[in-house]
């Protein structure tokens, strides 16, 4: 059995989300900030007439902020009937991974990164972290 993932990077790490959950991938869009919103929601974007919340994955996963001059990429996902844009550093590829490469997050991992990960795929060159999108974007 293999799983098809869309991969992207965050702070030098490789992450993946299931391809079925991904609607599209696009370049940074102008955002409208939302005062009083939780930190991880960085703003609202207009995707062809649809208003989407943009979730800053770095903030969500407890990673340091992105450089101001680095334009984020958007991974638009559909979660529980809602369309949400995930802000990531860069887009990788669509990748097939074998289930026997999969391993649950190590017990030593704690905090948001454990909570929001399904686990990791041990690729030859590096680890591919499988993001639990439902949890990562849950309010």
């Amino acid at each position: 059995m293999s799983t098809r993932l869309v991969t992207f990077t965050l702070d030098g790490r490789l992450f993946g989300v299931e391809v079925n959950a991904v609607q599209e991938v696009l370049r940074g869009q102008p955002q409208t900030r939302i005062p009083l919103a939780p930190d991880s929601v960085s703003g609202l974007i207009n995707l062809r007439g649809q208003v989407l919340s943009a979730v800053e994955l770095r903030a969500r996963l407890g990673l340091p902020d992105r450089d101001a001059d680095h334009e984020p990429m958007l991974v638009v996902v559909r979660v529980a009937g809602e369309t949400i844009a995930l802000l990531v550093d860069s887009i990788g590829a669509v990748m097939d991974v074998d289930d026997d490469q999969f391993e649950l997050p190590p017990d030593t991992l704690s905090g948001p990164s454990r909570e929001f990960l399904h686990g990791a795929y041990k690729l030859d060159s590096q680890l591919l972290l499988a993001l639990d999108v439902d949890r990562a974007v849950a309010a």
Partner: protein
Amino acid sequence: MDEIDEIVQEFLVESHENLDQLDRDLVALEREPGSRDLLGSIFRTIHTIKGTSGFLAFGQLESVTHVGENLLARLRDGKMSMSPQTTDVLLAMVDTVRDLLATIEQTGGEGDTDVSVVVGHITAILDGKAPEPVAAPAPEPVAEPVVDLVPEAPVVPALVPVAQAPVAAEPVVEHEDPVHRRTVADSSIRVDVDLLDTLMRLVGELVLTRNQIVRQAGDQQDVDLMRSSQRLNLIASELQEGVMKTRMQPIDNLWSKLPRVVRDLGANCGKQVSLTMVGKETELDRTLLEAVKDPLTHLVRNGVDHGLESPEDRVAAGKPAEGVLTLRAYHQGGQVVVEVSDDGAGIDSEKVAAKAVERGLRTQAQIAQMSPTDVLQLIFVPGFSTAAAVTNVSGRGVGMDVVKTNIEGIGGTIEVESVVGRGTTCRLRIPLTLAIVPALTVECAGDRYAIPQVSLLELVSLDADRAANAVEDINGASVYRLRGTLLPLVRLAEVLGVESDRSDGHVVIAVLQAEGKRFGLVIDRVLSTEEIVVKPLGSQMKAIGTYSGATILGDGRVALILDVQALARRVLNADALELDDTDDHDTRAVTAESLRLLVAGLGGGRKVAIPLSSVTRLENFDQSAVERIGNREVVQYRGGILPVVRLNNYYGAISDREGDELVVVIYTVGDRSVAIAVDEIVDIVDENTEFHAEVTDHGVLGSTLVRDRIVEVLDVRAAILSADPTFYTASDEFDAELQETM
């Protein structure tokens, strides 16, 4: 078509649909003659038509369907079996029925259609006689053989579902527009609601794109582009209107259920009620219709249960025994107004006021400054119920406050009017549609926000000079004097926790109304008014509660829509609640009863007003007379010991007073007194106490205008408690403590 009763029209649409089904069933029946299911289905259809036609007094139709039904019943019960003859007569019957329906549709009556031939044929079969053979065998139910059967029919019958052509060709029936007439069945179709919602959404997009193009075209000098964009503008507007209309339903869909509710309720309460409805045809967006269903039903129940009196009481009051409940709906200024009126006893605003005070919802002081109309609106405040006893009719946990919340939830408003002895009217104002709303776009800290027009009363712009004078500060809470009334101000930038970029001292105020209160929202700039399409916000943002949605502006950027109701609750009620917690009704009652106020000056030019009724004396003490007991200051006065409250300390002000004299106000409650130290006594006034705004702060009961300046009214109780927590409990602890020290 106007002359046709609505009920007949519905019957026609339904019957046409049923007949199409019948045709298919009959054809299928020929292939499997014994099918009970098919026979049952056909039987039911004919039975329905027969029943309704009898009810509507279409005798011919009834007689045809009656014999048809008999035949079908026998076939269904297996007493007869299908033969080509029976199929033929059944088809002939269906055609006759169709003709009759067409005639009814055209003329409103059955005309002189002769049904005796068909009836005769069917009766013959029922009697077991073979009827004269009907035309050639008809394997498919096409029109020809049937025409032969019923040559008397004035309309050429057609079995194909679309009956346009034959009707159009109808030469006999006279009508204003005989050529382009469509049958009822053809002029209406059933459309999936989801499809309509999708259409509505698309039109929303179009409106947004239109806004963008119109804006861009305005920036350019291209005349052709201008012209096209204007056309686009018009077409998009018309399309929007058209699509919105498809979602419109007459309010009668809702009202039609109410006569029964009123009847049952009247019988339950022993009241005689007649229900009149005006403006049944007024149309509303279907989602809104759904949303007002419960509130409206509740208002109607309330009207019968509480509004109308018993027949005896009514007769005693010189009114007819039968009460009248009136529902009225009409369009007004882009909104739909729905009124529920009764001619009952009315609501006594004084009783409402007393109740509100009793329940602790408002203070006597607040009531005193409200107009009777405003007092009536208190029935919508949570925790208020006018029914002395909870009846099983009303009082099911759905109070007027829920009605109000529901109505405000869809951007509507509710108000109540009443004349004692004459009746009560509840008036709902509901927007025509939820999806597209007119809004004001404003700027704050560089971001744009939309404020729905329904909450907006007016805009006030003050230049730096005027703002400096007109915007006054009460302990950090700003107010603006709008035509003599104090308008509490809320700074949007502060609410949102952002940095306003307006530094030139100009103040722009959007005067808003929500939850029955007015307040001014201070914004940086007003941009424009436009129609916005409301987009829902994601689940993460629902919890914030400050925004009711988002929209896309003309330039494609997203703007948040401010939830004015939530803002009002967040900013205004918080203060009111605070007040309730710290205050006692007795103290407030004093404020209202005694219109005279003692105005005292404090450090920093601040002025406070103290209700005069409890002030016993004004005294000057030497500073050296102040002694300390523990950490409290006291003075000896007329053989007693008074705690000293230094108002400057209480308000965190620094006294400007020099010298050794202490100016005190002796304030007495019961047998206990307190000395309130101030900087100076300014004045005693007994005017303008009706100006009482909801701007409150720590230790302030409210504010009033004295000689055109805003003066805070001291919350005496809280001030005294800060110096002596036991003052009002009259405990002996303090005395004991004093004696020990002495």
